[in-house]
């Protein structure tokens, strides 16, 4: 196995494959960093271009884009307070305040290093533990999914800054936004109010683009551009010390492991990985009150986890042909188009493809680290573009991005509406994070809850008699009441 893997490394480091990985990684970082455009879109749009290529070249560019785009989102999250892609949404919570406090370089460096570590940890899992992990993931049924997501939903309350009630209101509104559309259990239209366009509900990406990017850009437009303080990137700011990174050791490892595991579970996704790891980091931290104010731990937790989902999501894909994430669906399509059959026999029939995935992911990770650490200087110039130019240009890109998700203008309207809603949220001082978490997690929780009930023949007790489910539920209850105990005991 080691010899095949090193042979694959040798192959992929050849001039041509390497160039494809480089192009993929850099284009991924750039597209990931631009608000409005994201990795899933880039990979989907690149797929038709790879049609006539060598399959390994296709894998090289697509996996490069996958790794690059997940990492690139960090840049705009830090510098513009807009997550460049959905999975870097939790990164904004700490990276943006850190930048505003005058330490943008530190936020970026921490995020890049965390991304790299997350990628490496999940790569190790991918290479050495794929078969056993995939087996465990198969046993994870609707009951377990529900318990896992419920644990994350419970944690919303711990995210609140200030009024917990307002956080809950925001979360409820987020949950409501997730409801319209075709019900996944009964196939009935729900809350569509007679509009056929609402059959598909509110698109996740359109809503996130609206509430993060459009809201931020519109309120940027309101700032007096002569007086407004800008984030400045001082390249001379010292490189972060090894000690700073080492202090995050436990957090890095934990977040990477969480991200890897969430990645393995099909149908959950990178943004959930960073949500779970961020709230876990906050709840386990000795200084939870620093989260959201620009602390190292928050940036690290989110970025390590979202990059770790990449390797995790590849595990069910190479072992069973089951996509672990939306991008994996497109990777599987790429294989099918090249007449390679993804499935349990992939390793047996096309070992070179599997090793190709593994070596490409590692090479792309290293390239990402190098390109991003050295690219910071370039970024410094980029954000010197005055926002009076940046705002309209980025808004156009958001419009294009929201349209390209599903080729519908309706999604663009959704983005616009949620952009305006986001302005009201700011005015009403409602926190956005609970809204987004409620919005993302509710469909997963609801579908799995109702599926689990069908499987249990409507017996609620079944949730408590399944060991894994019961443990996860117990954890979520403990987590729910943990902050209450903390408050009593002054630190």
């Amino acid at each position, binding site marked *: 196995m080691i010899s095949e893997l090193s042979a694959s490394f040798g192959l992929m480091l050849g001039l041509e494959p390497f160039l494809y990985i480089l192009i993929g990684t850099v284009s991924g970082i750039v597209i990931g960093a631009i608000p409005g455009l994201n990795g899933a879109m880039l990979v989907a*749009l690149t797929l038709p271009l790879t049609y006539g290529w060598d399959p390994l070249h296709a894998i090289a560019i697509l996996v490069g884009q996958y790794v690059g785009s997940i990492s690139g989102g960090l840049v705009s999250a830090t510098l513009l307070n807009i997550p460049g892609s959905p999975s870097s949404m939790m990164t904004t919570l700490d990276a943006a305040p850190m930048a505003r406090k005058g330490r943008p370089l530190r936020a970026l460096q921490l995020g890049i290093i965390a991304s790299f570590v997350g990628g490496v940890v999940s790569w190790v899992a991918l290479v050495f533990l794929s078969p056993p992990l995939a087996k465990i993931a198969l046993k994870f049924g609707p009951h377990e999914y529900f318990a896992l997501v419920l644990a994350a939903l419970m944690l919303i309350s711990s995210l609140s*800054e200030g009024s917990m009630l307002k956080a*809950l209101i925001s979360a409820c509104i987020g949950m409501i936004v997730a*409801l319209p559309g075709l019900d996944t259990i*009964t196939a009935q239209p729900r809350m569509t109010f007679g509009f056929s366009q609402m059959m598909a509900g509110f698109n996740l990406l359109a809503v996130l683009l609206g509430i993060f990017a459009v809201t931020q850009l519109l309120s940027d437009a*309101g700032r007096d551009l002569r007086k407004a303080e800008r984030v400045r990137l001082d390249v001379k700011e010292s490189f972060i010390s090894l000690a700073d990174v080492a202090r995050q050791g436990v957090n890095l490892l934990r977040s990477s492991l969480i991200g890897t595991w969430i990645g393995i579970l099909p149908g959950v996704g990178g943004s959930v990985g960073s949500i779970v790891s961020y709230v876990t980091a906050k709840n386990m931290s000795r200084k939870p009150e620093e989260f*959201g104010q620009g602390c190292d731990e928050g940036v690290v937790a989110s970025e390590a986890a979202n990059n770790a989902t990449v390797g995790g999501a590849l595990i069910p894909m190479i072992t069973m042909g089951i996509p672990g994430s939306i991008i994996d669906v497109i990777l599987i399509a790429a294989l099918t188009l090249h007449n390679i059959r993804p499935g349990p026999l992939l390793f047996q029939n096309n070992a070179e493809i599997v090793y190709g995935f593994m070596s490409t992911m590692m090479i792309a990770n290293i390239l990402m680290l190098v390109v991003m650490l050295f690219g910071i200087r370039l970024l410094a110039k980029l954000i010197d573009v005055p926002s009076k130019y940046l705002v*309209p240009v980025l808004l*156009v890109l958001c419009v294009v991005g929201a349209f390209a998700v599903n080729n519908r203008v309706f999604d663009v309207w959704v983005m616009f509406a949620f952009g*305006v809603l986001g302005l009201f949220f700011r005015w009403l001082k409602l926190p956005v994070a609970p809204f987004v978490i409620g919005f993302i997690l509710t469909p997963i929780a609801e579908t799995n809850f109702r599926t689990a009930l069908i499987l249990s023949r409507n017996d609620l007790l079944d949730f408590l008699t399944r060991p894994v489910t019961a443990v996860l539920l117990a954890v979520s209850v403990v987590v729910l009441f943990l902050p209450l105990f903390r408050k009593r005991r002054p630190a």
Partner: protein
Amino acid sequence: MNTRSREGLLALACLLIAALVYWSADQIPVSLMAKISAGLVPKMIAVSLALVTCLHLIMTFKSVPEAEDEDSQGAMKMDVTESESEGFSVWRVLFSSMLLGLFILCLEQGWLGFWLSACLFTALGIVLLSEISVRSLVLATMISLLSVSLTVLLFTRVFTVILP
């Protein structure tokens, strides 16, 4: 507008939303597919929203204004520096939003085509955000032409997206 009336407005909106969600969930007919109706979870969420909102309302009106400010100090500080600092203009936000809405309307109705409407939007947007002068007008035109053309090229030539 003071804190109390703002929170009151929030509560009113939330209660309305909750009622609407509950009502529409109640309209969903029983399906042959599952014993539990598709309306159950929406109803649960609507009731939770109503409950939380009522609690919030009570807390707001019970607390002394000063105490309340202290309570949510952390969240507010940042927002204040962000949105209510000197020179923040609600009008500019409003105009930008309207401009964006107009742009999307153009796309939906296919009035001007993507290239032209995006150029116009970018140029007008830049002009709106800068002081009017010949220099800024020229710059606005150049930047909008450049950025929109690049975007269109990327999406229609490299990728095969049909823009609206």
